[in-house]
């Protein structure tokens, strides 16, 4: 079963359009959603959770149509963290625990307190006095403490320092040791996604440019740096993006379309995304 299946999803605003999005997250995998500010990542995530109404298309989450009445129950199995943490200001984590106990059937108090200790979050401090990092950690702890099968994280690691981000990645990694657990996460920090994702989906200006296995991407593409004159010899259909300076050309190429003599270097996911977004310019 697929954790998330999106078909032909469309949503228009006055100045933005999410255009015919198809996306599949197989169960047990981690997918990273990449894209510039305003590319449509958060819109996609809100549409998945049916928090906003789509114009067209179909979304199935954990085998349940997100427009069906059953989706309400299905939400028990989804842990969501949005880019802005969202608890009422006066609540302390102790209060949050009580609220969640009445919200989720499977709320696990011991697990929640365990995360609070692990993240060294003060139990009696009201939410408004929490720093951005602490707020994020609290939201992640809540998302993980009701035995979810699917985690949806929108920029959940931005605003955290590198050490904590790495700790979070470890937690996400461990979460998917269970075969039925899956994660969809969006982030600006592409290197984080490169570390843990099985799939990378790239949304650019409301359109999905690619959704591919991470390691396939890394094998398929290469970076070459050449003097301008020599660059002429590279077949144009192999070039996926290039940067021309006064001193030469740097280009992202498809490895199987050029001869090995160019000895392409291994790209990072960030290289692939930047070059693909800019295209031939």
């Amino acid at each position, binding site marked *: 079963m697929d954790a998330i299946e999106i078909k032909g999803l469309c949503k228009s605003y006055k100045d933005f359009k999410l255009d015919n999005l198809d996306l599949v997250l197989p169960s*047990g*995998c981690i997918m990273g959603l990449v894209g510039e500010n305003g590319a449509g990542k958060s819109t996609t995530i809100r549409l998945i959770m049916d928090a906003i109404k789509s114009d067209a298309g179909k979304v199935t989450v954990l085998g349940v149509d997100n427009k069906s009445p059953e989706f309400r129950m299905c939400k028990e199995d989804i842990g969501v963290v949005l880019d802005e943490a969202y608890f009422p200001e006066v609540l302390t984590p102790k209060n949050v625990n009580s609220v969640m106990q009445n919200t989720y059937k499977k709320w696990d108090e011991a697990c929640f307190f365990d995360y609070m200790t692990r993240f060294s979050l003060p139990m009696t401090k009201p939410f408004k006095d929490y720093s951005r990092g602490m707020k994020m950690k609290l939201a992640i702890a809540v998302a993980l403490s009701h035995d979810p099968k699917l985690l949806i994280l929108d920029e959940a690691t931005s605003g955290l320092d590198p050490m904590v981000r790495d700790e979070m990645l470890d937690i996400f*990694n*461990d979460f*998917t*040791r269970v*075969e039925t657990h899956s994660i969809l996460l969006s982030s600006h920090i592409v290197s984080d996604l490169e*570390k*843990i*994702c*099985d799939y990378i989906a790239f949304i650019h200006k409301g359109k999905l440019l690619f959704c591919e*296995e*991470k*390691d396939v991407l*890394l*094998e398929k593409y290469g970076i070459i740096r050449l003097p301008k004159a020599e660059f002429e010899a590279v077949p144009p259909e192999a070039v996926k993006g290039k940067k021309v300076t006064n001193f030469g050309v740097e280009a992202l190429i498809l490895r199987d379309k050029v001869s090995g003599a160019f000895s392409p270097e*291994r790209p990072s996911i960030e290289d692939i995304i930047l070059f693909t977004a800019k295209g031939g310019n």
Partner: protein
Amino acid sequence: MDVIISNANSQPIYEQIFAQIKNNIISGRLKEGDALPSIRMLAKDLRISVITTKRAYDELERAGYIYTVAAKGCFVAEKNVELIREERLKEIEEHLKKVSELAVGCDLGDKEIFDMYVLLKKEG
């Protein structure tokens, strides 16, 4: 068993896993019937993709080094002496091909190459 994944290595990750597990089997460090770590555990411990790890295991199975028991996992297959010999022979051929290519570049004849081999063997 150690599996070391290097990002500097131009070899794809699944090939690195394939080669290292294969070497462990050929060298006898992994014995016939030994259980391999589950695909998911290995992937998560190495922090690499589950799909990539599965690909490496699939290749190992196709090449006859391991077999899968449904719901139990993967195990080291009976060592096929012929298979390993064949593998080694292929490797020797590859190296010899390289030698002959290099020899042409240096204008070395077969006799000189052979003498060199005999000398090296005596020393080694």
